């Protein structure tokens, strides 16, 4: 029923979303911490930059990344000098693009949780002999873990669902840059609605399940001690 090329696209999509989510958690956590603790007026500038992908058409981001990734420009040239391979139209390119594209979905819930947590309880940890890293892993992380799960789920789901950026910087190379949303677009272009239905329905159900899981986790954390992920984590337009 499902074509072999669609299975390859599914594998590529999951691989891209998993790697992207891991990278996002690693860079998003310190960035969220920095933003939550930042008191400078430049905070709003950084926050606006992080939030840009929410409002920007993905093709705009994709266009500029495509230019940056080309061997004629410094980032693309550096990549080529180091790896010996072209960056544009590669799997690495769509991962980098996804990291930019899904950044706000990871940073914002974690930042909000850090802000809600405040400094009081962290100070209590310091007065009991815990250093900064110890405080993060024994106090901050356990209390805000629901937000980390939300951030990872949203980052993953949003990456699975992206289309514009991947099309711009990844092209349509099977096994390398062809993801589910592009496969779906191909089927529609070829008027193969039966195959399109299968992909569209799987994306719909999969995304629904991830979101339902996020809301379930938030619901259970509402009754426990952890910092809650109230819906205000996301701007209104992201919640619809």
């Amino acid at each position, binding site marked *: 029923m499902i074509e072999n090329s669609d299975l390859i696209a599914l594998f590529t999509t999951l691989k891209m979303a998993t790697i992207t989510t891991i990278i996002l958690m690693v860079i998003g956590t310190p960035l969220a911490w920095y933003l939550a603790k930042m008191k400078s007026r430049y905070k709003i500038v950084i926050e606006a930059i992080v939030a840009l992908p929410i409002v920007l058409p993905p093709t705009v981001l994709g266009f500029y990344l495509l230019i940056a990734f080309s061997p004629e420009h410094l980032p693309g040239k550096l990549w080529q000098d180091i790896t010996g391979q072209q960056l544009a139209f590669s799997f690495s390119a769509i991962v980098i693009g996804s990291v930019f594209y899904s950044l706000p979905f990871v940073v914002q819930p974690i930042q909000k949780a850090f802000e809600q947590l405040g400094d*009081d*309880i962290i*100070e*209590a*940890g*310091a*007065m*009991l*002999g*815990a*250093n900064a890293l*110890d405080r993060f892993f*024994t*106090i901050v992380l*356990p*209390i805000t873990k629901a937000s980390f799960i939300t951030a990872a789920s949203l980052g993953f789901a949003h990456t699975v669902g992206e289309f514009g950026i991947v099309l711009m910087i990844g092209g349509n190379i099977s096994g390398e840059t062809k993801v589910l949303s592009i496969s779906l677009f191909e089927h529609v272009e070829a008027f193969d609605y039966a195959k399109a239905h299968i992909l569209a329905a799987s994306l719909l159900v999969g995304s629904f399940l991830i979101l339902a899981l996020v809301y379930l986790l938030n619901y259970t954390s509402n009754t426990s*001690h*952890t910092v809650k992920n109230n819906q205000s984590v996301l701007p209104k337009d992201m919640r619809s």
Partner: protein
Amino acid sequence: MNELSFTFNTLFDDFNLSVNQTIPTTGITGIFGHSGSGKSTLLRCIAGLEKRTTGEITLNGTNLYNAKSSYFVKPEKRRIGLVFQDARLFPHLTVLNNIKYGQRRYKNTSLDIDEVIKLTQLKSLIHKNVTQLSGGEKQRVAIARALLAEPELLLLDEPLSALDNTSKSTMIALLLNVQKQLNIPMLYVSHSMAELQQISDNLLVMNNGKITHFGNVHHVIHTLNSSQSITQQTSLTLPIHEHLPKYGLTSLQLALNTYIYLPLLANNNIANEHDTHIRCFIAANDISISRQEVAESSIVNHFQAEITHIQPQENNVLISLNCHEHTFYSSISLWSAERLSLNVNDLIYIQFKASAVHSLADLGKL
């Protein structure tokens, strides 16, 4: 060298903290001040939680901070404990894991956890989630947690302000007992003079970011009497003479064969049965003066005293008296003072009811 010395000169948002003081790190030092006087900020500076300060701190001969040489020991390395006003327990941990948090990190062995649990009366709560506790229980956990880290100095920032009156007396008795048993020096911040009168050995007074008084608690309280910034009072620590359960009275020895009577302490659950001395105070308003000894009176406390100082204050007069080598303070109306034509060196009689002598037992009612 058991002392804490600190110098700070730092402009904060709403006041300038400008202090330079050496405090012996023995017993309990109270820090009194009205809100906004800088007492909590001072504690945060000593703890290392305020980084934007200029100054220097030395604790028991070890330098903790020196702004000039940019030397800063992080809070977690200072061996200073801090009990916050709002407990700040870790909500994801049980009572037991909360109190073990500091102990694990300092790898301490000299304090027995069971002893501390007993002292802080936490035995029945030990496996509870901290979110289920009452305000007083939370503070007891916070105190146990701080004690088990075995700090060289324990700071307490208004630890009782969120508690009801009965819990306050119990907690003060508990802290006094803990201090006596474990011998951990404490700095205790409060805006309640009644609390500080009961708990402090020494008292430090702050106003507008500056230290205005420091010394023995009774001496400082008596000095503050003339400034009218506190309830004017006679503050005393006296040996217990005997308990008279039949009459509901306890007597304290003021001098040889001279006793002050106050409401019975023996049956009160917060009085420590091993205590040999009692801290008490009598409001200056509650002490009356007469020229002649009133022989037959229902008022049980009456003594001869000598006037040492007379200070007019608006419509009242604050009279300092020497009574069996103790200083007493009586506040009477200007009208009475003129009617009795009181003068320094006059021998007069003071009297006050047993119920006017306040101890830890009725702290909550004040």
